[in-house]
Structures are given as structure tokens and as C-alpha cells.
């Protein structure tokens, strides 16, 4: 079977085509995600029957790394969310960003993101998972930085990237440890060996590392601020990456390994603890905002905290709650984000404290927003109600459940308020003035929110539609054993129902007093002054100061100092090694040719001339003579290629010096003091003696001709060339040469960048 591999390759390869279509704002861009959605839907019956599709291809066999894929209930749930919400977002963006000249780039990044995301949730090999994981961080960076000319956009893109990739590094360390403990990188095999791994002494380290990666990706407190700042991205990106899919990747990772660690005390403590704290922090922060997107972003953080907490609670019921809440959240949150985007697009503003009465202009949008909001608030008959009941039921059944239920209670009340602020407040009440006169948008922007909101209602009325086919298989994957659960909306008069009523009452009460509550919370300056966002700035400032300090220390800017240090350290290292290893030895001088001695004498004379030269031009000429004499030496020693190259380099060096001489502030006379000159002389003598000793020691060793003999034989027969040097360069060691020319080119480009700056700074006045 090649099916999953083919799907992912197809998604990647289609990116340029999607970019091309997207550049024309064609609604057909949604065809790719929709096609993938249909394919995954077709796999639904197979997975619902309890089957797990596995496939593996060779990738790096020497390291035991395979391109292996696994499709079970959990990965299929994610794949359906990614492709389904992807369809809505691709379509929406074609109208939302119509006519922008960055559209091709935008759609390429969005498609690459979708493909990476699918790869991450379908990977059955930990290394493959890590690769796709980092790719999602990278594409997220590109998408947050959609408007690179704005400073806020750059900062947010960098912050999101650094936090998620930093977490990714921790996860990679965890993966390597996990792989070595389990003896395999295959997720399927690791799940089979779960008990052995959980009992291993390294298990706590692995748990902390994996959780760090997941927490960074899924914006758990205190790593949450990047998600709120990521709202500078265009709204389709916020809806897709930063609420429905990418931020759920951490949740995916935790769910994936829940069967292994679910009974480990540290796992339970970390996940429930950080989850609950995140829920509370997100709830408070959401209440402080007026920007619709930032309100929604903080409510996403609350939901991610809820999911993390639920995964931390052991048991089958928690697994069902995770999956249900995951699907419900993706449906209503993507819907509300897209609605917020419509409001922004149509009115030109998204400050919810200043918006009102939009139902008159946008009746359809208002209705859709209401449907999504009701599901978010957790009212029957929406599926959001079922999810909330499950969260309470799970919490009540857990140990230390009262604390978790309390956190969930606050979080759910906050959800009611957010739903009110986004879905009700902007549309109800008196009409307010807006920069643009709004009206309902066209099909492309409304289709996605309508379908998402309708599904929230449909699944609530008919929970079995999604329950048996998707939620049960996915929950089985999280629980690590086949489950039987029948999702239903009405559970009778239970403690959960009572909690729901109380939640709603508190939420509505808080919503009605939102203005006062918001300004009270917003006035707590300590949150801005001491929050993690400010901490991030301090860390980045510190990093820059460290770089500056280190650069000043190592690079004072004096060429003489660089040369002196480099030569001294190099010679010292060589000499110490030579002495410690007992390598000091002299070769026999018998058989030295007379012409060579004459050349050597010439070399000595010209070197003395370099040392004695008092100005720059004499120095260049003398150094040139040294170079030419060395070339002669090569020629007589039977290395014509080397001699040839040396001649060319010397000639070119003189030409370049000629060009530079008019530009540089070379002094006519040597400006060094007598002490400096003496010091330089000592350094030069030391370097010269060391180099001579090393060369003599080399010559004292018997010459090993095996390699050159082999090349002499193989050169013509295998590489069709008689010039050994060139054959080695272009054929036997061609990869090295390719590396060398790349370095050469990069060095030239880097030097050009420095010189261009120099030219701008000083060159203009020299014209």
C-alpha cells in the first residue's frame, strides 16, 4: 500500500499549482483540501470498524528510521479536521484576500502547512513526526509574517517560531531518548511496549521533554503569549493554524503517547496541572481584550488547556471527552474566527466594545455567528453541550476532581462570555458607525462558517453521526484499548446538568457586566509588566547584548590583531601537539637536488624583503615574488597543476591589490611602535619555526603511496582522465568540490554584503 505516502506527497507537490490558482483569487483553490477531505471520508468506514492502516517505506535504514505511516481513529480525526477546515479556509481566503499581490506566496505556504500537518498526524515514525512538526512551525512563521514590512508582524512571527521550535528541540530530545529506551522509533511498536517504557527510570525525563514540546506548540501557560500575538496574521491563518489545527499538534502528541504514560504520576500531575493553570490564565486574559481576534485567541488557549487537562486524567471517559471537545472546539472556533474576519473585512474594524447592531446589515452572518456562539457557550441542542457535560463528568470522576472541576467551571463560564462578546454583542443593540458600510459577504466567505455552524447543530441533534464513526475509534486510540461509548446529548438530571446551569448563569451574569469587568481587569498593569510576553522581550534583549559583548571581545576590528591571534593559536596548537606526541623528527637530506636549493635561497631572500619592506607597494611586490618562487618549487617537484594554480592566484592577487590600493587608507609608512614591531617579529619567528618543524616531521615519515597508486590506476579506467588532480576534484571527490565552491560563493556574497555597507558609509564621498 502506498496510499498515505501518495496523499502526502500529492499535497506537497500540489503547492505551486495551488499558489498559481490562489494568485488569481479563484475559489477553485479549495479543490485540493476538499479532495483530500473526500479521500479521508472514504477511509472512515474502514477505521470505524476498528482497523488500523499501517504502511512503511525505506528512508534511512542505517539509523533505523522509516517513512512509516499510521492511520487510526486519532490520526483520521485530525486528518479530517485539517482537510475539512482547510477546505473552508482556502475558499474563504480567496475572497478575504482578493487582489492582494502576496496571494501566490500565501497559498503556497498554506498548502505546505496543510501537507506538513497531515504528515505530522499520519507519521508512524518519531523522526518523521519531528520533521513534519518543525515544518508546521516553519510554515506558521511564514504565515504569521504575512506583512513583513510591519514590525509587529515580524516580532510575532519570530516569537511564534522561537517558542514552538524551542519546544520542538525539547521534543526531539525526548524522541531520541524514547527511541533508545524503546529500541525503535516506530510509534506502533512503542505503543505495544508501553508498560516497559513507563517503568523505565528515564520515563520522567522523557515525559518532561515531550510535554515541553507539546506545551510550547499548544500554547500552554506560561508559553501562551505567542498565540495571542500570532493574531497579526490574516484571519484565515488565525482560524486555520492558530485555533483549529497547528496548535492542536501538541494535543495530538500528548494523546498519541497517553496510552504509554497515562498511569504515570508525573504525566498526570504535569498535564492536569498545566492544563488547569492555562484554563484559568486564558480565562482572565480573554476578559481583558476588546479585539475580537485576541478575545478568540485567549479562548483558544483556554480550550487547549482544557484538552491538556483532560488528557492528563486517566480513564476511558477522559479519552471520549478529549475527542469530543477537540472536534466541537474546532467546529465552533473556526466558525467564529471566520465570522470575526467577516466583521473585520466588512466594517474595517474589530473592536467589539465599539461595534453593535450589525444584524441590520449582515443578517446571515449574524445568524451564523449565533449558531457558532451557542455551541461555544455549551447550550443544548448543540454538540458543545455534550462536550461540556463530558468535561464535567470526567472532572468529577477524577481524583482531586474538585480542583479540576473548579477550573473547568471558570473556563466554561469564560467561554459563555466570549461567545457573547463575539457572536451577540457585535450584532445586537444599537447600530454604531463603522469605517465602511458593511453587508453580508459572498458565497466564498460565508460557505465555510455556515457549514461549520450547521455541523455543530447537526452533531448535537444526531450525536451518533459522529459518535460511532469517529469519536469512539479516536478515543480508543487515546485509551489504548477498544472502547464502547454511545455519545448522547441528554443524560438526565445529573450533577453535570446542575453545573451546566450554574456555568450558564455565571457566564450570562459576567457578560452583562462585561464592560466593567473588562476595564477592571485591563487596568491590572502587573499582567503587562510581569507577564511572559515581557519576559520574552527581556530574553531577546539579553541575547542581543550578549552577542554585542561577545563580538566586541572577539572582534575588535583590527586586522593585525586578528592575524596575530589566529597565527599564534594555530602554531601553539601544532607545536604542543608535535612535542607531546613525540613527533619531532628530521628527515634525511640525501638526494636533495641542486636546483631546489637555489630556489630555497631565492625564497629566503624574498621573504626577508617582505619583512624589511617599509611601505605597502614594496610589500606587495615582495610577497608576490615569494608566491612565484613557491610556484617554481612546485613546478620542479612535479606538481604542474599546483604550480599553475599558484601562478594564477599570484597574478590575480596582484590585479586585485591594484584595484584595492586606491580605496584603502593605507599609510605611506609603517605606523607601529618599536615595541609592536618587536612583538610582531617574535610572533612571525614563532610561526615560521613551528611550520618548519611540522613540515620536517612530515617529511621524516615514510611516504605511503597506496592512495596515489590506486588513483593512478583507477583514474583512466574509472574516470576517463589522465590528470589525477583534476580527476580527483571533479570526479572521485566531486561532492567535496561542490562543498568548496559553495563556500567560495558564499564567502564572496558575504564579503560583498560587508563591502556594500562600507561603500555606502564611506565610498560616496570618494567619487
Amino acid at each position: 500500500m502506498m496510499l498515505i505516502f501518495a496523499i502526502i506527497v500529492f499535497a506537497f507537490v500540489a503547492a505551486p499549482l495551488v499558489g498559481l490558482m490562489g494568485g488569481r483569487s479563484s475559489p477553485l483553490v479549495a479543490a485540493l483540501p476538499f479532495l483530500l477531505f473526500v479521500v479521508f471520508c472514504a477511509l472512515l468506514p474502514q477505521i470505524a470498524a476498528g482497523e488500523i492502516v499501517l504502511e512503511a517505506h525505506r528512508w534511512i535504514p542505517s539509523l533505523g528510521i522509516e517513512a512509516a505511516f499510521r492511520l487510526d481513529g486519532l490520526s483520521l480525526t485530525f486528518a479530517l479536521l485539517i482537510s475539512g477546515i482547510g477546505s473552508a479556509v482556502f475558499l474563504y481566503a480567496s475572497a478575504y484576500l482578493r487582489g492582494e499581490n502576496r496571494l501566490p506566496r500565501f497559498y503556497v505556504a498554506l498548502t505546505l502547512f496543510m501537507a506538513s500537518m497531515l504528515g505530522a498526524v499520519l507519521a508512524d515514525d518519531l523522526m518523521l513526526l519531528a520533521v513534519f512538526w518543525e515544518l508546521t512551525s516553519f510554515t506558521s512563521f511564514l504565515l504569521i509574517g504575512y506583512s513583513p514590512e510591519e514590525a509587529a508582524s515580524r516580532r510575532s512571527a519570530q516569537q511564534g517560531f522561537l517558542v514552538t521550535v524551542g519546544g520542538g528541540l525539547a521534543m526531539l530530545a525526548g524522541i531520541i531518548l524514547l527511541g533508545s529506551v524503546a529500541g525503535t522509533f516506530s510509534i506502533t511498536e512503542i505503543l505495544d511496549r508501553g508498560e516497559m517504557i513507563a517503568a523505565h527510570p528515564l520515563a520522567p525525563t522523557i515525559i518532561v521533554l515531550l510535554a515541553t514540546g507539546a506545551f510550547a506548540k499548544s500554547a500552554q501557560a506560561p508559553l501562551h503569549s505567542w498565540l495571542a500575538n500570532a493574531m497579526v496574521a490574516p484571519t484565515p491563518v488565525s482560524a486555520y493554524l492558530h485555533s483549529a489545527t497547528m496548535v492542536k499538534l501538541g494535543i495530538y502528541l500528548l494523546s498519541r503517547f497517553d496510552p504509554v504514560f497515562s498511569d504515570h504520576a508525573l504525566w498526570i500531575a504535569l498535564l492536569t496541572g498545566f492544563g488547569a493553570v492555562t484554563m484559568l490564565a486564558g480565562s482572565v486574559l480573554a476578559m481583558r481584550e476588546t479585539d475580537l481576534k485576541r478575545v478568540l485567541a485567549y479562548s483558544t488557549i483556554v480550550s487547549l488547556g482544557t484538552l491538556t487537562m483532560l488528557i492528563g486524567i486517566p480513564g476511558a471517559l477522559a479519552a471520549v471527552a478529549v475527542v469530543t471537545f477537540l472536534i466541537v472546539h474546532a467546529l465552533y472556533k473556526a466558525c467564529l474566527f471566520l465570522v470575526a474576519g467577516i466583521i473585520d473585512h466588512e466594517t474595517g474594524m474589530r473592536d467589539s466594545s465599539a461595534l453593535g447592531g450589525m444584524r441590520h446589515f449582515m443578517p446571515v452572518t449574524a445568524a451564523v455567528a449565533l449558531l457558532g456562539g451557542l455551541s461555544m457557550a455549551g447550550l443544548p441542542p448543540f454538540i458543545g453541550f455534550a462536550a461540556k457535560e463530558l468535561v464535567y463528568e470526567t472532572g468529577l470522576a477524577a481524583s482531586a476532581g474538585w480542583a479540576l472541576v473548579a477550573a473547568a467551571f471558570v473556563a466554561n463560564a469564560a467561554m459563555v462570555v466570549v461567545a457573547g462578546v463575539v457572536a451577540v454583542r457585535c450584532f445586537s443593540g444599537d447600530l454604531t458607525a463603522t469605517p465602511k458600510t458593511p453587508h453580508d459577504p459572498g458565497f466564498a466567505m460565508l460557505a465555510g462558517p455556515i457549514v461549520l455552524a450547521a455541523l455543530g447543530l447537526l452533531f448535537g441533534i444526531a450525536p451518533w453521526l459522529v459518535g460511532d464513526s469517529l469519536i469512539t475509534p479516536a478515543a480508543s486510540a487515546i485509551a489504548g484499548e477498544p472502547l464502547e461509548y454511545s455519545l448522547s446529548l441528554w443524560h438526565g438530571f445529573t450533577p453535570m446538568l446542575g453545573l451546566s446551569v450554574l456555568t450558564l448563569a455565571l457566564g450570562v451574569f459576567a457578560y452583562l457586566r462585561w464592560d466593567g469587568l473588562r476595564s477592571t481587569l485591563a487596568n491590572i498593569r502587573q499582567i503587562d509588566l510581569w507577564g511572559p510576553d515581557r519576559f520574552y522581550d527581556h530574553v531577546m534583549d539579553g541575547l542581543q547584548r550578549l552577542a554585542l559583548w561577545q563580538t566586541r571581545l572577539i572582534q575588535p576590528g583590527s586586522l593585525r590583531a586578528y592575524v596575530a591571534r589566529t597565527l599564534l593559536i594555530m602554531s601553539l596548537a601544532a607545536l604542543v601537539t608535535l612535542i607531546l606526541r613525540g613527533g619531532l623528527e628530521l628527515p634525511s637530506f640525501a638526494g636533495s637536488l641542486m636546483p631546489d636549493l637555489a630556489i630555497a635561497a631565492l625564497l629566503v631572500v624574498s621573504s626577508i624583503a617582505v619583512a624589511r619592506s617599509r611601505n605597502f607597494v614594496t610589500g606587495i611586490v615582495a610577497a608576490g615574488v615569494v608566491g612565484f618562487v613557491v610556484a617554481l618549487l612546485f613546478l620542479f617537484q612535479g606538481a604542474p597543476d599546483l604550480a599553475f594554480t599558484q601562478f594564477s592566484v599570484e597574478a590575480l592577487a596582484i590585479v586585485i591589490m591594484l584595484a584595492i590600493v586606491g580605496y584603502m587608507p593605507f599609510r605611506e609608512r609603517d605606523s607601529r611602535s618599536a615595541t609592536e614591531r618587536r612583538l610582531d617579529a617574535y610572533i612571525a619567528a614563532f610561526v615560521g619555526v613551528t611550520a618548519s618543524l611540522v613540515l620536517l616531521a612530515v617529511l621524516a615519515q615514510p611516504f605511503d603511496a597506496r592512495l596515489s597508486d590506486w588513483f593512478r590506476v583507477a583514474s583512466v579506467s574509472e574516470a576517463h582522465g589522465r590528470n589525477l588532480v583534476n580527476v580527483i576534484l571533479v570526479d572521485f571527490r566531486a561532492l567535496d568540490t561542490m562543498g568548496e565552491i559553495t563556500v567560495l560563493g558564499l564567502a564572496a556574497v558575504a564579503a560583498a554584503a560587508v563591502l556594500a555597507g562600507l561603500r555606502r558609509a564611506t565610498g560616496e564621498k570618494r567619487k
Partner: protein
Amino acid sequence: MNSIILQTTSRLILPAALIFSIYVLLRGHNEPGGGFIGGLIAAAGIAVHAIPRGRTSLVSMLRVWPKTLIGAGILLAVLSGLPSLLLAEPFLTHQWPFPSLPVGTTLVFDLGVYLVVIGSVLTFLSYYLEEH
């Protein structure tokens, strides 16, 4: 550096250096020579020509920025390794498609080296040339 001597002699040096550099490039597989030396010779010839005439004339003579030559060279070197991948051999295993003609993918690779050397030298040099 507006020297009449350099202006005049460089007009002769440039074509000689270029022709010689190509000769050196082509003979490299069997006799002393090759892309690296050829590139150095060509770069020296072009540099001598450009020094008295300035930066603008260098670019207009090359028709591209010297940086482009670096990219083109690396691209050629990479391309020369691709046929081997198609034949399921290790990357950069050179191919000799014509049994009688001594022309293979090594020449493409060496041409890449040649261009990178010229491009690097001239990229660096161009910042020291005067604007005319």
C-alpha cells in the same frame, strides 16, 4: 584608476585570457588545467579589463551581476550530479554518454567550478571598482 596604459593593454589581454582560460578548462581532464585554474585566468583577464573602466562597464559587459555567475555555477555542478540519481547510482557519479567522444558530465561540473570562481572573484572585486 583611469590609466591609458591599462585601458589599451587590457583590450588585448581580455580576449587572450578568455580564450586561454577555456583552453585550460577543456584540457583539464588529461593535462594540467581545469575549472579552477581556468576560472582564475578568466577572472584575472576580466578584472584587468574592468579596473580602468569601472563597475558599470563590468556589469554591462557580463550582462549579469557577478553574483548570478556564482548561482549559475553551483546550479550546473548540482545538475551534473542528477543523471546519476536517475540511474540509481550515488549522487555525482559522472556519466560518459558517448563511447567515442571524451565528453561527460564532468565537463558540466567543471564548467560550474569555472563560473563560481569567476563569479566569486568579480563579486568581491566589483565593490572596489569605481563608478563611471
